[in-house]
């Protein structure tokens, strides 16, 4: 898949324009705060309907403006699509080939991007909710049904918590049953995905770091002793007293955790900042590889200033370990060395105050 062009209107600080991206490599250079990452964010929004940086629609609209739009021309293996996203009066609307869609999930089958950014560190060392978010993203990319199960589970947990707050326990057994049914499916998918991660992640990390470290991912489910719906129901029933006391569902996949283990020890506790950053990058690389394995499609890669953190050798090893891709966007600072004019079909933009110009134009 390839994003041929992206047109922005009142999006963040970007000057309204049509940016030609019909190339395998798109490099964006410029000082901080000029709008390099904003184009990567626009691509991400076109792929998923929401941003990786902000949950508020308002933040995406240029200062002092009331509406924004993004239009992308996307080429997939056998088709061509136009994806349009608008925000007007605080309401987001998404169109695929001029037809409005009601669920942004429909976008996922058009174009998939994987963003590599500084915020990825949270997936390695952040709160369990951040780690769940990363693995849930991966599961949603490789199994279309997962996102429906996840939405259903979140709704059931909210309803069950409301029951606990209202102290009407006559329907608690029903929510136990429902949570157990969907929760076991989620737990099994998470187990399977972590197994797949461990077939790739430790070796990839070792290859890029070249320091003999081989960290593995450990899935720590909240329902440790549950392998079927009946087990999960039993665990939920046993936690009724505690749940009633805290007025919330204290066990279930919404409380699952992930750990990074190296030789039975917690890797993150002992890892240097550089190693944690590398783990975050390799985690995303693995996500891209798993997506390609599961779907046969190549994702669009968005690398936001992350190569800066790697020394030259690690950078080379990291780039050669990346999943194959049809298209990749890179951001660089002005003095940073980036790809030479090489065998890649590439275009380089200089970004200044939200305006894009090709390097020839800016010279």
């Amino acid at each position, binding site marked *: 898949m390839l994003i041929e062009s992206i047109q922005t209107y009142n999006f963040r600080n970007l000057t309204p324009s049509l940016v030609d991206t019909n190339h395998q490599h798109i490099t964006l250079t410029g000082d901080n705060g000029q709008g390099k990452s904003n184009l990567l964010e626009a691509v991400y929004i076109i792929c998923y309907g929401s941003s990786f940086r902000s949950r508020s629609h308002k933040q995406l609209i240029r200062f002092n403006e009331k509406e924004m739009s993004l239009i992308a021309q996307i080429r997939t293996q056998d088709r061509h699509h136009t994806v349009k996203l608008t925000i007007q009066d605080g309401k987001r609307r998404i169109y695929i080939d001029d037809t409005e869609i009601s669920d942004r999930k429909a976008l996922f089958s058009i174009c998939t991007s994987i963003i590599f950014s500084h915020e990825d560190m949270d997936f390695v060392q952040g709160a369990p909710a951040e780690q769940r978010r990363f693995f849930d993203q991966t599961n949603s990319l490789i199994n279309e*049904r997962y996102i429906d199960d996840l939405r*259903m589970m979140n709704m059931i947990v*909210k309803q069950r918590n*409301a029951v606990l707050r*209202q102290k009407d326990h006559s*329907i608690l057994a*029903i929510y136990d049953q*429902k949570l157990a049914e969907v929760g076991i499916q989620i737990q099994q998918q998470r187990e399977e995905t972590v197994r797949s991660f461990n077939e790739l992640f430790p070796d990839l990390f070792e290859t890029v770091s070249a320091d003999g470290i081989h960290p593995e991912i450990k899935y720590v489910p909240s329902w440790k002793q549950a392998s079927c719906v009946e087990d999960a129901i039993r665990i939920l029933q046993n936690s009724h007293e505690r749940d009633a006391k805290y007025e919330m569902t204290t066990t279930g996949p919404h409380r699952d955790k992930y750990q990074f283990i190296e030789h039975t020890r917690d890797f993150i506790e002992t890892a240097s900042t550089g190693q944690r950053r590398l783990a975050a990058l390799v985690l995303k690389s693995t996500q891209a590889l798993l997506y390609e394995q599961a779907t046969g499609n190549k994702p669009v890669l968005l690398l936001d200033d992350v190569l800066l953190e790697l020394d030259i050798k690690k950078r080379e090893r990291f780039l050669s370990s990346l999943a194959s891709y049809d298209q990749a966007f890179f951001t660089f600072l002005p003095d940073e060395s980036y790809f030479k004019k090489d065998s890649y079909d590439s275009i380089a933009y200089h970004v200044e105050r939200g305006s894009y110009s090709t390097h020839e134009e800016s010279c």
Partner: protein
Amino acid sequence: MRSIDELIRGLSRLPGVGNKSASRIAYHLIQRDVRDNHLLGELISTIQDKIRLCDVCGSFTEGQICDVCQDPHRDHTLICVVEQPQDVFTIEASGVYNGYYHVLHGAISPLDGIGPDQLTIGQLIERITTGDFSEVILAMNPTEEGDTTAMYITHLLRSSRVTTSRLASGLPVGGDLEYTDKVTLARSLRGRIRMSDQ
């Protein structure tokens, strides 16, 4: 103009009517025969005085008991449980059901403050235990709230003599498998019907 704006605002509060439709209706109302508007206004302002809920099933009726509940020729062994009164009319229009109804007036959703006590589940259990019904058809919507309500009623009736059934959900008639969404397809597969025992 203030009076037009107020009319558009009022119309756009109706379900399924957006701003554009509300404007179109408002301008149409301004330009058509005033007698039609008076008649429509009269119908709207008196509808709540004319329509009430059936004492037996909770559906809409103009009398004390609805036509369905008064009909002795219906199948006394079947009762169909629905969320809203309008669901009764939808099922009646299908022409394939000849039993009785019970309207819950909602579905269980603790987040919205709707528990079993806010619905007519108590009356339903009473009707089932004192009536001749042998099957309860749970025709709630295939939503999280509808499923929860169906499971709860099944749970309450687990030791009674009646059987409970749920409306099948899945592929639309005349639909195309290729364009069916994954959730619907998964549900259809789970609820598939056996065609032969071999």
